[in-house]
């Protein structure tokens, strides 16, 4: 569990922030669901737009957070990850599989094989890349680099909506 002293000072913590709602408490762990913060679902076309339907699958994005701030079910909080973490995460999830996938295709092509073998080599490279990405993600997770951090409580929806309207 992360001690309170280890928490970064929110005033100088350069973070990518997001809103989340506490949906369950299990012992010392609070389960959070991210809130939809983009315009998706909020614009005039939300009923006809498929993007809002995709974005509303919040249950699938539920994640745990150590409950050192005595959070209660229904609380809305602001969480954050360090700015550099997002770039590291993108590199891990996308760059590694891409490089191995392209490498597989290029090597097969340079070896003189046809397009069919190059496609198979690319798929094999992609599978290897996803495996490597999983290993790296495990390592980063063990170091706590991918864990979101509690920053502060967010105002209730009624308050924030009235602010937006003004």
């Amino acid at each position: 569990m992360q001690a309170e002293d280890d928490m970064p000072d929110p005033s100088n913590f350069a973070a990518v922030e997001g809103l989340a709602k506490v949906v369950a408490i299990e012992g010392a762990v609070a389960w959070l669901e991210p809130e939809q913060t983009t315009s998706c679902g909020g614009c005039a076309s939300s009923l006809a737009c498929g993007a809002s339907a995709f974005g509303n699958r919040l249950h699938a994005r539920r994640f745990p957070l150590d409950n050192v701030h005595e959070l209660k079910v229904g609380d809305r909080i602001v969480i954050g990850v360090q700015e550099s973490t997002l770039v590291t995460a993108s590199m891990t999830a996308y760059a590694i599989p891409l490089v191995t996938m392209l490498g597989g295709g290029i090597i097969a092509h340079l070896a003189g094989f046809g397009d069919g073998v190059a496609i198979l080599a690319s798929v094999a490279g992609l599978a290897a890349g996803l495996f490597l990405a999983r290993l790296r993600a495990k390592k980063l997770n063990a170091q706590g680099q991918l864990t979101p951090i509690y920053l502060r409580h967010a105002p209730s929806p009624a308050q924030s909506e009235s602010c937006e309207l003004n």
Partner: protein
Amino acid sequence: MQEIILVIVGAALVNNVVLARFLGLCSFMGVTTKIDTAVGMGMATTFVITVSSMGNWALEHYLLVPYELEYLRTFTFILVIAAAVQFTEMSVRKISPPLFQMLGIYLPLITTNCAVLGVALLIVEGHQGFLIGTVFSFASSIGFSLALALLAGLRERLALCDVPRLFMGPPVGFVTASLLALAFMGFSGMASN
């Protein structure tokens, strides 16, 4: 090898998918308020464009052309793109749930990004082979990510500037994007694709 380098330069800089072909403008303006979100979106789009272009090339050459089903091309490509986005979402979730929490928000938006379909159709139009087509799609998406990151960096600086109230937000963003497009015109003539 020289052909591959020319394809990369041509797709990423000369015929930049956003600033020269004007595809994917929705996410270009939508996620470029912060450089980190722009990089996240750019990387996700790069992955999806490359994977879906490979899938589309294989379907085009092993299914649509041999069975004379070219009239189903757009429909098929859209299905492949949706499947590629779903595959990416599933694989990121499998790789690491915290990664999915951070990067998952960008993925559904890519399904409706016309740059993904545009690149796949450009590969078919150019009668490119598998390797050149894949390199073209990768370079196009790197160009897309580059444009996103450049505009995000400029908009982060603009947020600190004293912009007239009428131009604050998206208007000055559009002005900046058009100046960026003009700057990219300087690459024209370096390589063609």
